[in-house]
């Protein structure tokens, strides 16, 4: 599946538009990474545990959107956007949405 965040797939022609697809996941953090992060908070810098968690969640959300697009018969996902919202302290929703199309 080709994924872009612009309105076209450069070098290809859109032959069919299937409309909006989306995928989302809500993740909570593990207390272990949370503890490590609170210690790391003292010296600052990157919180690797959180980075990894959010990267995994974003991948998951994207895979769900892709699965929806595949189901519709699309072979590309265009104009993809991400959104993050913290649902509660320690939990975040990652949303990925885009337009499923068929390109040639």
């Amino acid at each position, binding site marked *: 599946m080709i994924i872009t965040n612009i309105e076209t797939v450069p070098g290809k022609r859109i032959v069919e538009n299937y409309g909006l697809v989306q995928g989302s996941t809500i993740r909570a953090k593990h207390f272990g990474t949370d503890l490590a*992060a609170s210690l790391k*908070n003292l*010296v*600052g*810098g*990157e919180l690797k545990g959180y*980075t990894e968690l*959010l990267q995994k969640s974003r991948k998951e959300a994207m895979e769900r959107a892709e699965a929806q697009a595949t189901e519709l018969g699309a072979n590309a996902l265009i104009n993809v956007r*991400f959104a993050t919202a*913290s649902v509660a302290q320690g939990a975040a929703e990652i949303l990925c949405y885009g337009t499923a199309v068929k390109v040639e």
Partner: protein
Amino acid sequence: MWQFIEVGVPLALILLGFFAGRLAERNHYTSIHKREDEFLSQPAATTKTIEEGREVQSAELAVGSVVVSVDYYKRFLSAFRMLFGGELRSYASVLDRGKREAILRMKESSPTADVYLNFRMETATISKGKRKAIGSVEVVAYSTAIKFKA
């Protein structure tokens, strides 16, 4: 005894934050500068179109993200700044590092691209520290990586 602990522990944390934070920041900037030089000829743009007449070989989504947090010393400084208002210079360097790191990771996720179109960047607060201070911030950078036909 208790007074000593009450003053001593925060003071030790401030000193730890100052020295360890400063060292980490210097190392990080060295690494950022080195990696940015490698990607000098592969720019990221916020435009959505490419120049006419160039044939595209592939297009894919490139994503990079990082979660950064401020050290104890900077948080301590910001508490003073928040009394009087004004620019929080100590936080600026942390967010600058986060943004540049996210851009670099985005480029590293598809390192052979010629140009990164429709570049977008978002920041999200992950955890709020005590007293409304920024705890940690996530920076996400994403774009469409375009590779031209040779």
